[in-house]
Every structure is written in C-alpha cells, then in structure tokens.
C-alpha cells in the first residue's frame, strides 16, 4: 500500500518537473532561423553542385578536357564536350554538362581534377518544377553573357598551319606514292586501287 502512494507521489513529481522544464523553454527566446527571411550561413567547404573556376588572369576556365571528372563520377552525371581549334593550345571546352538530377555530391570530380578547374559552388537555393532545369551547362553558367572565344595565338596558329600544310603535303605525297605503288602493282585493276587510296585518305 505504501508503494501505491509512493508511486503516485513520485509520478506526480516527475510530471511537475517536466512541466517546469517546458515552461522554462517557453519563456526563452526561440532559436529558429526563419529561412526565407534570413538565410543560412554557408561554410566555405559547403559541397554544392560543381562549377567551373574562372581564371582571374585570362577570364576563362582552366579545364584541359582530360575527362578525369567524367571517368571518376560514380553516377556518370558529367559529360565534357571539347574540340580542337586552330591556333589554340590543347583542347577547347565547348560544353560542360552536369546532370544534377543524378549527381550525388560526392566530390570525386573535384578531387580528380588536376588543374583545379572545377570547385563546389555555394548555391543551395535550387528549386524548380522542371527536370530540365537541373541539367546544367556549367560553361554557360560561368559566362552568362556569352561564351568568349579562346584567344588565338598567332604564332601557334602559324606553326599549326605550317604543320597542317606539311602534313597535308606529306599525306598527298604518301597518297601519290601509294597510288603509284598500287598502280605499279596492279596495272589492270586501276580503279579499285584508286578507290582504296581514297578511302585511306
């Protein structure tokens, strides 16, 4: 019987203690961050989606189009499109497409990037009702006013042109030589040989 009353008293006491605590919390100031009115403090290391880095000197990206980010990506959400332009050293990035719908923000791409051409952005207000909005062309994002043409190095262009010329000449010579050889070899079947050479070129 004493246990019965003891239970009641300890029980009521514990309930009163609980009420006290919530009362204390009621009187303290709320700590909520009112999100749309105030914004969250972002840490410099925040891993948002990736973005291309603008080289402060040239104003261009420093991507060398090696495709390591593409290869390292676990979900295959990156595709780097590049082409060779006359007079420009290395490949030129034409599109850097990040499919953010499949990106898992693991950071393998940034880690794999040797020249440090990509980094994490601090953008987190990414809301949209359309799926297509999450397929980013990072190059366009880097240059919203329009993608600038890479500077053409005249010397390099000259060299390249010369090289191309030389290559062309060499190819022509080779072709000629090959044609001759072929012709010499198979006099009767001339057409066939020619077409083969053409194919080769």
């Amino acid at each position, binding site marked *: 019987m004493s246990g019965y009353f003891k239970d009641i008293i300890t029980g009521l006491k514990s309930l009163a203690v609980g*009420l006290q605590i919530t009362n204390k919390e*009621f009187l303290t100031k*709320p700590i*909520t961050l009112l999100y749309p009115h105030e914004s969250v403090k972002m840490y410099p290391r925040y891993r948002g989606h990736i973005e291309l880095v603008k080289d402060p000197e040239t104003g261009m990206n420093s991507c060398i189009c090696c495709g390591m980010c593409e290869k390292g990506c676990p979900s295959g959400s990156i595709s780097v499109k590049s082409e060779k332009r006359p007079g420009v050293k290395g490949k030129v990035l034409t599109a850097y497409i990040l499919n953010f719908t499949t990106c898992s923000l693991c950071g393998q791409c940034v880690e794999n990037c040797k020249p440090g051409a990509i980094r994490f952005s601090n953008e987190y207000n990414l809301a949209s009702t359309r799926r297509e909005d999450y397929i980013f062309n990072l190059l366009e994002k880097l240059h919203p006013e329009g993608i600038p043409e890479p500077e053409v190095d005249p010397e390099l262009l000259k060299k390249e042109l010369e090289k191309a010329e030389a290559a062309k000449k060499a190819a022509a010579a080779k072709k000629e030589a090959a044609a001759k050889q072929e012709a010499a070899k198979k006099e009767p079947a001339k057409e066939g040989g020619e077409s083969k050479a053409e194919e080769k070129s």
Partner: protein
Amino acid sequence: MNELIRLLSYMICIAAFLGLNLAYLGWVERKGAGHIQRRTGPKDVGPYGLLQPLADGLKLMSKQLIVPANADRPLYMCAPILTMVPAVLLFVAIPFGEHLVPREFNFGLLMMFAFASVGGMSILIGGWGSGNKYSLIAGARAVSQNVAYEIPMLITAITIVMITGSMDLNEIVRQQGGFFWNWNVFRLDKSILMPVSFLVFFICSLAETNRTPFDMGECEGELVAGYHTEYGGMGFGLFMMAEYANLVIGCSLTTVLFLGGWQCPFGLFPGPHWFLLKMYFLIWCFVWIRWTYPRTTFWGLLNLSWKYLIPFSLVNLLLTALFIKVF
C-alpha cells in the same frame, strides 16, 4: 417573446464566442507548442500569425471531402456533425456571469454529462463508419476510455452536488462567493480530499476531451490519426473544432465546479472576466501538458482510471458524505 429574443441573441453570441475560440485556440496551441519547442510557431500570415486560423479554415473548406469506398456512408457523413452538436449545445448551460447564462437549468450538471457522452459516441461512429481498421481500433478505444473516465468524473461531480446541494451550475458558482477559500477546491471543511478531487476531475476532463497524454483515439504513433484518419477537408475540420469546443467546455465545467466560476478570488467585482481568466488558464494548462508529456498506453490509461481515479473519487465521496452528516 422576450424569452425568444433573449435566446436568439444568446445563440448568436455563443456562436460568435465559440467560433472565435475554436479558431484561435488552434492558434494558441500552435503558438504555444512552437515556443515550448524553441520555435516561433505560426508567424507569417498576418501579424504574429493571427490570420493563420482563417487561412487554415479556407484551406480545409476548399478541400474535397472524399468518402472512402468501403465506408458506411451515412455514418461516415454524420459523425463529424454529431461530434459538433453536443459541443455547441452544452454552452447553453454554462454560466459565464451571474446573469450571463443562456438558459438556467436546475439540472445543468446532469445535462452536461448527458451530452458529453455523445462526443464519445461520435468518435465511435466516425471510427466505425470510415471502414478503416485503424479508425475502428480508435473507435473501440475511445468508447472504453469514455466509459472508464466518466465514472470518476461523475462521482466527483456528485461530491460537488452533495456539497452545494444543487445541480444548477449558476447556483453552484453562487455558493462559492467571497474569498478563494470558498471555492470548492479549497473546501477542506467539506472533505479534506477536495484538492485531490479537483485533480481527478481535471485529469478526467483531459481524458474526456482526448488530449495528449490520453489521446488514445488518435494516437498518431500507432493509429496514424485514429478515428479521423479517413476524414479530409471540413470533416476533419469539424473533428478538430469539436476537440477545441470540448476543451472549452471541459475547462468551463472545471472552473464552474471547482474554481468558483465568475467569482473573484478576493470577493471584488465578480464577473465574466474572472470566468474567462480561469478558463483560459486551464486551457493553457491543457496545451502545456500536451506538449510536455508522451502518450500513455491504452492499458496505462485504464489502469489509471480504475486503480487510482475511481478509488480516490469514491473515498472522496464517502468522506464528503461523512463530513456533511457529522457537521
């Protein structure tokens, strides 16, 4: 004719009072919960979120009322109405002030209990009519809960009736005039268990209104949303409003029976403001309790009723009878 006008005006007043209460108690609850939980609660709709109830109401009203395919349609439809009716009706007997009573019955207390049990019925009907197993369990729980808690509640009320010798609510309040030690809570000369009895009554009204430590009918951890799982739109809205209406009634009744109703604690300027003050304090206690405690089990709830509340109220009844007889 005069009587009719009086009644009509009271009905309008009650509707307004009730409407305001139902809307803003929701706001109070949310705001209270917010501040207790280190949050701010509703704040964007209007100043301090004061227009939030309006927005909520609009949202609920604009929603389609979907009747589940295997629901018992008539029962399903009438349950929300049925839960609202007794809640509104009961206001007719509550004395807000000495002359501010919609209708003075000499059996007001009896009527209170008679109609209050309809609330439990409506939960059962809603739970059964939904054709949902969760709702069904909730309905079954609600009935046995109501049965279990009406007993101690009634016995405690009988104690009050024995002390005051009246079932007229206004008369009960009148007898508690003067200083606060004349309130029934502190009537130690009638029975030394009176404060305990108040606690019993308070807990019972908590259980009767299905508030959190005892919300077996809608415990979301187990039964999703209990008896109103299948209700959407205004069906749900009515259940919600009925909960607050029951809250107001439960607190009013506790105030009337134990805390001296419209009487001032110091015997000065009695009036409806005192009644409202006491009632809202009790309501705040309900909110406060709701956001502090976890829920009991169904088992624990019945245990509490049969093992603690009923014995206490019975002992109190006997003691009171003894004191009245002896002194």
